[in-house]
């Protein structure tokens, strides 16, 4: 890792009434793309909610850009989160606003930029995510893949240093999912952002992730590159990759299962 970690979880326990994940320790370096893996209900999304400030941890610490997030006042925490961007599993676009208004929202609320500049930034960002000319569309007039791209555009409009994506390509066909992967890689290339991606898609993980962290039985089960995890002799890790490979039924998935 180079430079100070943009995100660090220290002995973190997350959950609602009782812990779902415990003793979670990991760091994300600047410019790194890390995938969070695990079976449904293993706590990945709950961990993400804690990391983005929506669910206080039961124990431990979340350090964002070197600052202990939950030790800050709500105002300070909001300013710190302004340096991040989050794309939710549901696109979370505001249905009553056009795509332009949705993407421009953080700029209008958090900056003093002139209207013309904001419009231009939105136009450019929509082009970057593959939605040129869609400014005046309403979310209901767009496909699932387009809405996901619009959500990514909104999450990235303030040029965040760290982005969180919860299942960005879930429920999309392979071609559209590949487009989302390209968009995510584009964020690192163009914006220099680090990314934390929650996903089940092996193909996506192979394409975008530098590293993966796998969760099982309420804790981190394995950490490493996808190749390292694929070759793991840990039955839990192998079983997870095998099952995922079966469900995706792609040649790459089969190769992973075989390895």
């Amino acid at each position, binding site marked *: 890792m180079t430079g100070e970690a943009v995100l660090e979880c220290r002995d973190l326990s997350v959950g609602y009434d009782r812990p779902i994940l415990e003793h979670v320790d990991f760091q994300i370096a600047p410019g790194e793309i890390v995938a969070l893996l695990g079976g449904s209900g293993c706590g990945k999304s709950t961990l993400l*909610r804690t990391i*983005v*400030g*929506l669910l206080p941890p039961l124990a431990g610490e979340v350090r964002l850009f070197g600052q202990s997030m939950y030790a800050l006042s709500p105002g300070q925490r*909001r*300013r710190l*989160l*302004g340096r*991040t*961007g*989050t794309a*939710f*599993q*549901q696109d*979370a*676009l*505001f*249905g009553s606003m056009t795509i332009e208004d949705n993407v421009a*929202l*953080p700029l*209008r*609320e*958090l900056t003093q930029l002139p209207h013309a500049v904001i419009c231009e930034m939105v136009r450019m960002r929509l082009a970057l995510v593959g939605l040129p000319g869609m400014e005046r569309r309403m979310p209901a007039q767009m496909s699932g893949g387009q809405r996901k791209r619009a959500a990514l555009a*909104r999450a990235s409009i*303030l040029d965040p240093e760290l982005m*969180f994506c919860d299942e960005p390509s879930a429920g999309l066909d392979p071609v559209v999912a590949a487009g989302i992967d390209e968009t995510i890689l584009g964020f690192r290339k163009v914006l220099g952002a680090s990314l934390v991606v929650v996903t089940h898609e092996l193909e996506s993980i192979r394409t975008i992730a530098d590293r993966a962290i796998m969760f099982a039985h309420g804790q981190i089960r394995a950490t490493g590159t996808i190749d390292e995890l694929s070759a793991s002799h840990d039955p839990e890790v192998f079983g997870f990759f095998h099952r995922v490979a079966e469900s995706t039924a792609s040649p790459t998935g089969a190769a992973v299962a075989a390895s």
Partner: protein
Amino acid sequence: MPSQAPAIERDGRSAVVRLRGDLLVPTAGELYARLRGVARQRGVKTVVLDFRDAGRIDSAGTAVVALLGRQLRRSGKQLDLRELHDQHRAAIELTPELASGVRPPDEVVGFVERFGAQVIETAGGIAAFGGLVAETLRQLAQVIARKKHIPAGALRHHLETMGVGAIFIVSLLAFLTGMTMAFQGAVQLQRFGAGVFVADMIGMSMVRELVPLMTAVIITGRTGAAIAAELGTMQVRSEIDALSTMGINPVRFLIVPRIVAITAIGPALTLIGIFIGIMGGMLVAQVTLDMPAVTFWSRVVDRVTLLDFAHGIGKSVVFAWIIGFTGSHLGLGAGGDAGSVGTATTRTVVLSVFFIILIDAVFATIATFTRHG
């Protein structure tokens, strides 16, 4: 294989139930009743289910066996399954509790625990409500001080949807209420030769009680429910989470415009309702009592003081806050499913009406004791 009644035999402290025919949905209820009767017999320590002559078993049949096993264990008795065929065994294996014979621990929650949990939940709800009010006022102060701003066009949008759309229904109901009051009052007061006082009665009741209360109930149904439903749906769709993660304060973005709008709309609709209601009463007084409009109006103006107006309008502001904050609190607190939005909406209406009537009673009591009533 058609279903038949099981044969039940006693063997010492055991009851042997020979199951016959299929154990399927149509007969599961009857079978359960019979087995429960056997399980409750005092001398029986073990119930043996003999599957030798049993036919097919489906989910309902398996559930009956599982339920029987749990009830027997709870009363310190045993269930013994014998002569299982492959299909029976396969069905039983789908029920881990039956297959292993290990009962998952029952969570016994007593009255004290339930009551305590309810108290804690209520206290948490009150604290969250207080927190929302405090945060709204803090954000509002920052907006007034021009340190922050509310979304462009949001206030106008809410004023239009909450206020303009409600003018007709409030006016209509106020007019009808004024007419009804005047009809009732005219008949009663005329008996004592005091028909002229119908103007005093209409003026006072409209300004101090009826219109503020009626308008608040209409706003609850129209606006309070809409606030809860809108915010609840946004919660379900993660839109509020998205605002938080963007560093945008959801209270300033969503709640402040709604509270400001409803604070303006409550008194405004009440004023309109008061005027229209008095007009309704005036019309009836003219028709039934031949009271000239000028006389009616001058009596109203003489009788109703500025303090009465302050009482009515002051209440309408408090009612508006009750509706706005209740809808916002319950909408923001909606869970992640559509049902919770419906619950939030219903609770908003019920709680708002309850607190409106409660606060109205408090106002009336204070006014009486301070000799303004």
